[in-house]
């Protein structure tokens, strides 16, 4: 996973899902090879898992892989050292596997308690295809899949992880059951798409590429100095403000008065929580434009404070003296793109 290939758009929410989806798909394929191609050889070697262990291993291994993949993506984007990455992945994957195994067993036991004696005998059949007796196992294992990476992320986004883990596993279970039981009548496509959708939604729901991997920039769109850009964030992080105007000395971005830029026209700033904003500092026309919205930031002399609005990736700022105009844009680019 490479941050340079993930623009600050919907892509940063989708990209983890694509990776975890493919990991889940590969996991399903790996198990299919194990159970169909390698099984006869492994059986003679005493290494073929028993039938009741089949579901357990499928769910728990996919769970561990998804959790491991989630922290692996994070390590890759933050450029952690290989050793640190490997240690985190192994620890999270192992911890998630153990937690999932416990959840699988405990949930199975609880479901068993609420079954009658006759149903217990039926449900004990490892070959039984059932949603009723499996859905809780899917969801609880999904919960563990979500909570595994939370430990590595020191509790950040606990509820998102827990909720996302359960929902994604629930979607996987529903897909698996609906396709297998109602649509295709077999569990080849159903299992493939079930595990795939679990992985896909897991990546989509629990973790997006973090905002702090990006930095805000002000970039000139007008012909004069076209493409020139300045970062808003300081290297140390935290509060920072950049000024734009035609004052010849000390401003962060010089633009000529002939293009309708006042001496001190606007400033772009970022707060400690990485929220970006633009302030109008001049009585000359100052406009921020985004889709279906225009914000007039012209300074009001009757008000002591300048007007400001939050900036979103791709917002345009139009600075003008009433005749000439200069266009700027706000961009969020990966920090590595300095």
């Amino acid at each position, binding site marked *: 996973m490479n941050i340079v290939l993930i623009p600050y758009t919907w892509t940063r929410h*989708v990209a983890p899902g694509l990776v975890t989806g493919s990991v889940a798909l590969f996991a399903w394929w790996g198990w*299919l090879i194990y159970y169909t191609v390698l099984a006869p050889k492994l059986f003679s070697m*005493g*290494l073929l*898992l028993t*039938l009741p262990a089949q579901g357990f291993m499928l769910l728990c291994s996919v769970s561990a892989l998804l959790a491991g993949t989630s922290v692996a993506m994070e390590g890759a984007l933050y450029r952690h050292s290989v050793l640190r990455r490997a240690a985190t992945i192994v620890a999270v994957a192992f911890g998630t596997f153990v937690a999932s195994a416990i959840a699988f067993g405990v949930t199975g036991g609880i479901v068993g308690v609420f079954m009658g004696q006759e149903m217990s005998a039926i449900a004990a059949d490892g*070959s039984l295809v059932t949603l009723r007796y499996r859905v809780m196992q899917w969801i609880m294992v999904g919960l563990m899949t979500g909570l595994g990476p939370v430990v590595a992320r020191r509790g950040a986004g606990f509820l998102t992880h827990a909720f996302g883990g359960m929902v994604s596993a629930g979607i996987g279970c529903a897909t698996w059951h609906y396709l297998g039981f109602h649509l295709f009548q077999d569990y080849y496509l159903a299992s493939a798409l079930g595990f795939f959708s679990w992985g896909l939604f897991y990546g989509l729901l629990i973790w997006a590429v973090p905002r702090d991997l990006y930095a805000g920039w002000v970039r000139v769109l007008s012909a004069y100095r076209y493409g020139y850009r300045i970062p808003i964030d300081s290297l140390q992080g935290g509060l920072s403000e950049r000024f734009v105007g035609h004052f010849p000395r000390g401003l962060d971005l*010089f633009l000529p008065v002939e293009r309708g830029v006042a001496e001190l026209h606007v400033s772009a700033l970022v707060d400690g929580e990485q929220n970006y904003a633009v302030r109008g500092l001049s009585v000359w026309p100052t406009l921020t434009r985004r889709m279906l919205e225009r914000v007039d930031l012209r300074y009001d002399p009757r008000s002591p404070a300048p007007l400001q609005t939050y900036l979103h990736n791709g917002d345009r700022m139009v600075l003008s003296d009433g005749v000439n105009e200069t266009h700027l844009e706000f961009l969020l680019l990966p920090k590595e793109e300095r």
Partner: protein
Amino acid sequence: MRSAWLLGLGLLVAGCEDPKDGLVPIEGTTYRIGAPAQDGDKNEVIVDMLRSRDECRAKLELTDEQAEDCVPRFDRATGQGRFAFRIVDKVNLDPLFLPLAEENIKVSHDNRPPPEVRVTRHDARPTSQLFILLIDGSQSMHEPSTQEGPVMKVYNALMDPSVIDGFFPKTGSVERGVLLLRFTDQVRGFDGGPPRVITSRKEYKDVVQNYMLAGSPGWTHLYDAVDFSVGKLLEDAIVKDWIQQRRAEPTIVALTDGFNNEQSSDSCGTNAGRLTDTLEKVSTARKSEFGKRPTVYTVGIGRALRPGFRLPKVAPRQISPSMLCGRYQDSVINRGVELLGIDNASLDLMAAAGGGKSFVKSTHKGLASVFQEAAAERYGWYQVDYRVDGFYHRRSFDLGMRLDAFARGGAKVRVYPSGWVDAPALAPGDDGWGKPVSFRVTLTLLLPLLSLLLIGGFWGPASYNARRALFRRAVKDKGGEPPPSQTPPTMGT
């Protein structure tokens, strides 16, 4: 740390199938199969259901390619199942070769017969056989004496080239013999002499042509004829020697056009006691060593008196008049009930006791097919395909099969589908039955999905860059390009 690894490894191994008595994986599927168990009481043979390619190769001495049809296969999508079996002697565990046909093999899926079954026979082996043809010599066989008369139908059937080929194959090194016998109150050769083993096509044709239509009619002592053929005839020195020297299997085909009728006062019910004795004798003969025991086929020419007659599930010790005759138990046979039809109940009971089959045929082609079947080749192993609704593959199930002819035997095995995943479904075959697909077919699912993900991964940055390239161009200045008032300040000056 090491102990943790050892603990993990121990748990993993504990969760694995035992290669000695665990569930055997069915290759190419996610199904598993348990150990087969013989099903039913008093089985005469062992039905050996084969569970894996290794078993097929070892027990049937097949190559990898030949074993393809022998390897079991189950598919939830089509509801199809396939297994192979062979018949093994109960005593010495030697493989037995039987001419089993589809209708002789009763398959069950969770104790219910599947709607579609196909049996494919493999490893055809011609065996030495002695065919004992018992032809009814009663007066009614010669009425009418035209081509439509029973005796002419039998004549035409016996002279049918395919029947002669069945009795005396043109190829192969096995020896076949035919005993052509006519029965009334006595059993004699067609020529009126003692029984004689015919071993050549020419001799066979001569005897049939010269003596088939001859003979002096009498009463129909069908039961006595069967008694004789399973008893004294097989003990006759010439016949016994012929059988022993060639290790031949005796196959008896008893053919009649009516009832066992020993005197004019006989009613249908009178036959019940006689039939009981005959069945006992046939059963006793069938208890001899496998391979030497006679197989009894019975054939009626005409139409069945009781077409709705069904064999009792358990072989009865005593045949009652009502069981044999139904509402005809008091009806006189001679010129009475024999005009209504053939005693198919007797024929069915004798064939069932004799391990063969019973037929009622009215044309010489039909009769020829019976003789062909009696002379059928024996097979080393059988492949059974069956189909049920895929719904019945959603939990483990019992797969059972029983033989209903030639020998008592049956087996049952439990099959375990996966509760989670399946292998790719069978592809439709030309013969209407699914055929296995290569595992590579999974790539047709995997690669498109991965491609979609890959395209999705690149679509984001590509569309973003394309959009910017289109809409984030330099904004042109209105009214030309006046010189800037100043250049940007140089930092630090």
